[in-house]
């Protein structure tokens, strides 16, 4: 610790060890993931929460509690292998229908995707209430409209979805790379059907590949 912490903080950010403690305290206290920006807002001027997070993450590796990344935000979560000890804390989750689960997976893997695409993949109409339910659970939200005739709305998954399934980003969906490389995430039109799908195609592609570019 420095001799004059009070005065120093006016000129200089607290030492990294101290920043780490601050981030630790804030994230520990919160149930919701917090973004770097949110952390920074509460910390003294000049702090670097991103760096503090990197140290903190290392510190909690292998512990009973982990520092996990959820999209742009961070949160402490108990280690997955200890779930059996927390029976009392388990919340009865709403049972999702098979249709809802498949719809969710299609949105996650094909995002941004339209309702028509979901229906084409599943071969049946999206039943009433399915989208509604996923929206209410805050696992999906609207993405940008497709710039194709009719400008259909699209769906994408949310940070709440990532948090629930312990994913850092949509890129970390299990098996995503294999699915991509086998072409199963492509939006191939039926041969001979000259749907005005070209833009669609490009966009869907760019949507997917965006995930990989950075």
């Amino acid at each position, binding site marked *: 610790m420095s001799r004059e912490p009070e005065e120093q903080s006016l000129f200089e950010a607290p030492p990294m060890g101290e920043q780490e403690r601050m981030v630790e305290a804030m994230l520990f206290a919160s149930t919701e993931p917090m973004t770097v920006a949110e952390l920074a807002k509460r910390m003294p001027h000049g702090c670097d929460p991103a760096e503090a997070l990197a140290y903190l993450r290392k510190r909690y590796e292998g512990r009973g509690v982990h520092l996990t990344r959820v999209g742009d935000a961070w949160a402490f979560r108990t280690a997955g292998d200890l*779930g059996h000890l927390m029976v009392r804390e388990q919340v009865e989750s709403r049972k999702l229908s098979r249709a809802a689960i498949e719809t969710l*997976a299609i949105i996650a893997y094909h995002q941004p995707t339209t309702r028509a695409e979901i229906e084409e*993949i599943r*071969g049946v109409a999206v039943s009433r209430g399915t989208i509604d339910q996923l929206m209410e659970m805050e696992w999906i939200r609207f993405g940008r409209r497709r710039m194709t005739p009719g400008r259909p709305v699209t769906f994408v998954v949310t940070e709440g979805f990532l948090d629930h399934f*312990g994913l850092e980003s949509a890129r970390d969906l299990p098996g995503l790379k294999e699915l991509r490389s086998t072409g199963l995430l492509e939006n191939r039109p039926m041969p001979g059907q000259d749907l005005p799908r070209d833009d669609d195609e490009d966009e869907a592609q760019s949507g997917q590949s965006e995930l990989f570019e950075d």
Partner: protein
Amino acid sequence: MNDETQLPLADDWSLPERLDPAARLAAEALIVDVDGFEGPLDLLLTLSRTQKVDLRRISVLQLAEQYLLFVNKAAKLRIELAADYLVMAAWLAFLKSRLLLPPEPGEAGPSAEELAAHLAFQLERLQAMREAAARLMARDQKGRDFFVRGQPETVSLQRKTRWEANLLDLMRAYARIRTRDEFRPFVMDREHVFTMEQALDRMRGLIGYAGDWADLSGFMPEGWDATPMARRSVTAAHFAAVLEMAKRGQLTLRQGETFAPIQIRRREPE
């Protein structure tokens, strides 16, 4: 197993009885729980499993046979299949005939092989999505396998009201207003909208002149076909009005054939 054996091919898709017994049994078993399937694609995927090969090497021809057999059996058992099952059956029958016959010279459009490959792709993609969904659900989940802070801390309190509203509230509110609009009289303020009440008023005055059969179009107000919108609205309103008047016994109407002019005549009080 005889899964790989080349199947005899029936020309008439309604009688593909020469499928091997295993496939036939499979098709019959499926009929029992036809309600359990989520549409024809789901059923096709299930049927494809009896081939016990990689979906990429599946015999679409054989699959088509199995599907048509399924539909045929269902028909015999008088099980009502939803329309999309029948549409798929018709398409598969078409595909099957295309796969069996040599292409006609100069034939346009995609080849049967391309169509078959697309169907195989669809099945593979659906299967892949199902597996992806299963893998997703098998992940550790929040509140089941891992947990959030049980006692979130908020030490110092600064009161602040947060107004809550979510997207569904917003959309429902909008829909509520817009749906209500449909009842509101000001909708009628739109230009070129001619109501049935207006048409009734007009026709009541005019019907006296229709002692003999006369075309309804002759009774339309001036300028009624100025715009397509006006034409539709005026026509519909007058048509509805004369139906109403016929119901009340004020006039009789007739039409020679479909799309022929509609004629009206005043009905004399008896």
